[in-house]
C-alpha cells in the first residue's frame, strides 16, 4: 500500500487539523458575547416595557379610536372619543405588563409545571389512556346525554353525529395525507361519490342502506383509483392542484348532469337506515312496536349515532391494522422517501393507488351515511370548504395521528358550534355583539395560535409499527411530511 501513488485515508492535511484544534482550544470556556447585567429590578423593567407598548399603541391608534367621523348635513362631523382610545391603551399596558412581569422576565419558566407533569407521566401510555376514556364516553354518550342534559339531548346528539362523521372523514384522509404523505385537496369528491351512489341506488333500485353501504364504498374506492392514476407522476404542489381540480370536477358534474343527479335540486327521499328491517317511526312493524316501548324520535338519532360510531371505529381499526401490515409500512416508507422505496423493489404505483383507494372507500362510507342521515343531498354539500375542513382536522390533529384527528374534530366542529352559543360575550362587548358573526374570526385566530404553539399538529409524535424491545415515540422533526406540504 505504501508504494502506491493513490491518496489514502490516512493522508489527512495535518496542519489544518492542528490549526482548527488550537482555535477550538482558545475558544473554550468563554462565550463570545455576554449580556450586560440588568440594572433595573424586574418590576421596573416590566413597567418600562409596558409603557413603551402603551405609547406605541397610543400613537398608532390615535386616528382610529380617538376620533370619529360621521356623515352629517353638509359634510362630515368630527367627534372625539378619547374614552375608547384610553381603554385600548390601558389594555395594551396591562397586557404587556402582565406578560413582561410574569412570563418573559420570570426566573422560573412558566411551562415548568407542565414539564414536570409530562416528565412524571413519561412512562405511561398517555395516548392509550385518553383513547380508552374517549372510547368509553363515545360508547355511552346517548345515555349520558339523556341522563344529564335531557333538555338539549337531541341537539347535542345531532352535533355528536356530525363530529363523528368528521372524525371518520379525518381518519380516511389521514391514510392518504398522514400515512402515504400525498396531499389531497379534493377528498370531498369521494364523500360526494359515496353519498350519490347510495342516493341513486336507493331511489332508483329501491335498495336499503346496508346493501348500498359496501357498494358506495367500492364505488368511491374505484374513483380513488381513477384519481390515483393521473396523479401518480405528480409531486408537491402539482399533486395538490390536481386533486383540488378533481374535487371540483365531481361537484360540477353533479351540478350539471341534471337528468341523472337531479342537478342543483339534489335528490330527495333517501331512505332511512333500518335495524334488521325495523324502521324508526310510528306504527306497526317499527322498532318501538317490535320491542314494545313507547315511540320517541330520539331513538332514530341514537341509532344513527351508533351507526356512525361503528363505521368510524371500523375505519380506525382497519387503519391501525394496516399500519402494521406491509402495505401500511410501504405507505409510510413512501412518505419518507419514494426513491428508496423503488430501490427496495416496492411498486410505488400500487402503494399510491391502494392509499387513494382505501382513503376514498372510507370517504364513500361516510358519504352514504351522510345521505341517509340527511335524507336529501345536493352538490352544495360537497364544496371545497368541506375538503378544507377535513384537511384542517388532519393537519391540526397531527399528520398520521389517530387520536389527534379525534381531538381536532371535537375542537373544530364542536368549537364552531360552541361559539354560536357564546352569548356570555355580550356582557363584555355590549348588547349589540352577535357571537355568530365573529365565530369564524375567533375560530381562525384559535387555529393560528394552535399552529404557532404546535406547528406539526396536536399529536405530532409517530409511534413505530414494529417493536424489538421498547416502544419509543419518534419526534415530529424526524418524520417526513411527504408531497405537497
Amino acid at each position, binding site marked *: 500500500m505504501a508504494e502506491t501513488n493513490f491518496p489514502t485515508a490516512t493522508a489527512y492535511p495535518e496542519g489544518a487539523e492542528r490549526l482548527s484544534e488550537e482555535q477550538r482550544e482558545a475558544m473554550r470556556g468563554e462565550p463570545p458575547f455576554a449580556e450586560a447585567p440588568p440594572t433595573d429590578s424586574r418590576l421596573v423593567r416590566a413597567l418600562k416595557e409596558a409603557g413603551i407598548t402603551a405609547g406605541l399603541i397610543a400613537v398608532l391608534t390615535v386616528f382610529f379610536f380617538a376620533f370619529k367621523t360621521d356623515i352629517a348635513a353638509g359634510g362630515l362631523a368630527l367627534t372625539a372619543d378619547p374614552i375608547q382610545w384610553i381603554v385600548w391603551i390601558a389594555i395594551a399596558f396591562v397586557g404587556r405588563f402582565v406578560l413582561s412581569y410574569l412570563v418573559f422576565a420570570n426566573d422560573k419558566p412558566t411551562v415548568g409545571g407542565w414539564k414536570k407533569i409530562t416528565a412524571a407521566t413519561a412512562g405511561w401510555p398517555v395516548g392509550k389512556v385518553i383513547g380508552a376514556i374517549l372510547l368509553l364516553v363515545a360508547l355511552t354518550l346517548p345515555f349520558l346525554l339523556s341522563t344529564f342534559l335531557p333538555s338539549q339531548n337531541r341537539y347535542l346528539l345531532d352535533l355528536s353525529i356530525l363530529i363523528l362523521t368528521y372524525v371518520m372523514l379525518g381518519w380516511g384522509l389521514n391514510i392518504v395525507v398522514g400515512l402515504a404523505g400525498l396531499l389531497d385537496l379534493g377528498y370531498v369528491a369521494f364523500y360526494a361519490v359515496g353519498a350519490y351512489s347510495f342516493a341513486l341506488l336507493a331511489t332508483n333500485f329501491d335498495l336499503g342502506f346496508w346493501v348500498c353501504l359496501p357498494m358506495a364504498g367500492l364505488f368511491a374506492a374505484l374513483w380513488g383509483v381513477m384519481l390515483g392514476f393521473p396523479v401518480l407522476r405528480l409531486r408537491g404542489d402539482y399533486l395538490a392542484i390536481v386533486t383540488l381540480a378533481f374535487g371540483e370536477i365531481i361537484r360540477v358534474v353533479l351540478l350539471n348532469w341534471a337528468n341523472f343527479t337531479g342537478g342543483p335540486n339534489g335528490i330527495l327521499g333517501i331512505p332511512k337506515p333500518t335495524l334488521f328491517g325495523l324502521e324508526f317511526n310510528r306504527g306497526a312493524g317499527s322498532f318501538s312496536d317490535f320491542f314494545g316501548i313507547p315511540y320517541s324520535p330520539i331513538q332514530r338519532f341514537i341509532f344513527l349515532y351508533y351507526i356512525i360510531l361503528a363505521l368510524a371505529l371500523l375505519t380506525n381499526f382497519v387503519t391501525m391494522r394496516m399500519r402494521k401490515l406491509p402495505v401500511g409500512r410501504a405507505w409510510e416508507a413512501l412518505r419518507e422517501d419514494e426513491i428508496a422505496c423503488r430501490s427496495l423493489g416496492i411498486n410505488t404505483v400500487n402503494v399510491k393507488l391502494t392509499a387513494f383507494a382505501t382513503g376514498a372507500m372510507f370517504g364513500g362510507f361516510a358519504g352514504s351515511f351522510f345521505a341517509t342521515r340527511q335524507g336529501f343531498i345536493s352538490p352544495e354539500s360537497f364544496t371545497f370548504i368541506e375538503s378544507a375542513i377535513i384537511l384542517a382536522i388532519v393537519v391540526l390533529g397531527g399528520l398520521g395521528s389517530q387520536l389527534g384527528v379525534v381531538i381536532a374534530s371535537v375542537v373544530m366542529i364542536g368549537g364552531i358550534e360552541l361559539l354560536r352559543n357564546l352569548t356570555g360575550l355580550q356582557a363584555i362587548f355590549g348588547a349589540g355583539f352577535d357571537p355568530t358573526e365573529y365565530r369564524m374570526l375567533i375560530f381562525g385566530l384559535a387555529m393560528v395560535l394552535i399552529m404557532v404553539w404546535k406547528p406539526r399538529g396536536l399529536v405530532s409524535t409517530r409511534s*413505530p409499527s414494529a417493536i424489538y424491545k421498547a416502544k419509543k415515540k419518534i419526534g415530529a422533526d424526524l418524520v417526513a411530511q411527504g408531497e405537497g406540504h
Partner: protein
Amino acid sequence: MLKQNRNWTDNPILSVEHLTMRFGGLVAIDDLSFDVGRGDITALIGPNGAGKTTVFNCVTGFYKPTEGRIALRRDQHATDEALHELTRSGRQYSETDKGSIFLLERMTDFRITEVAGVARTFQNIRLFGGMTVLENLLVAQHNKLMRASGLTIGGLLGLPGYRRAADAAKDTAIEWLRRVDLLDRADDPAADLPYGAQRRLEIVRALCTDPVLLCLDEPAAGLNPRESTELNTLLKYIRDEHGVSVLLIEHDMGVVMEISDHIIVLDYGKKISDGTAAAVRSDPKVIAAYLGVDDEEVDDVERDLNVKTGHDATAGGSL
C-alpha cells in the same frame, strides 16, 4: 492467481455490453463493456464525473440507457445462446431450468430489485428517517411479506400464515442488525443514528431484499478508518457467507485495494483499465487519470499509452 483472474470472464453474473448513455449532447458513458464475476467484489473507480454513478443508475434501472445490453445471469448454467434468444425475443427475462437471465435495460427500477435480485444503496444515504431501524429492514422485505399477507386481506384477518412470515421477517432483520452491531438501536428512528451506522443500515436494508448482486455507491464515504475496516469485514462476510456478488463505487483506495477481486477504472465515460488490484494499481493510464502528468512527460506518456493500448487490446485480461 490466474484462476481467480478469469472469474469475471468465465463466470460473470452481470455482463454490461456497449453501454452508452447520452444526456442531450453530453455522452456520460461511451460504449462501455465490462463483466462482474459471480461471488466477486468488483470495484468501479475513476475520477469525479467519470460516469460511475450513471453506470449504477443504468444497472439498477433508474436510468434507461441510450444503447447497450445489461444482462444478469442469476445462475451459472445460463448459456450465451439462451441470452441471444432472449435478446431477440423482446422479453424482459426468462426463467427456465436452463438458467434464468434478466435483461436489466428493459426492466423498470423496482422490478429489477423484485424479480432480478439487484439491490442498491445511494451516494447520499436514503433511509426512511422517521421510521425505526427495525421498520426500515421490514420495509425492505415488503414483497415477501405482501405475498404472505395475501395482499393485505389475510393480514387484516390475522391469519397464522402471515403471522409466521412476519415473525420470520423480524428474525431476519434482527439477525442482520446483530451482524452490523445495531441491535441496541433497533427501536430508534433511523435519522437519529450516527453517519457510519446509517451507512451500515442502508447496506443491510438492501441485503434484506435477498439480492444476488449488491450495488453500493460509495459505501465508505464519510467513514473514519476504523469504520472503513469494519465495512471491509462486512463486505467480505456478505460475499463469502451469503454468496452475494458486490459491485461498488468507491474513492477510498484503502477499501478498494484491500477487498476488491476485480477493479474497473472509468474516465470520461470510457473504461481505461480492467483487472486485479495489483494490475490496475501499476497501470500508467490509471496513474495519469488520477494524478495527471508533468508537461515535459506528456510525450513520453502518450507514446507509452499508445503502446499500452495496443498491448491491452491483444492481451485482454491476461494481466
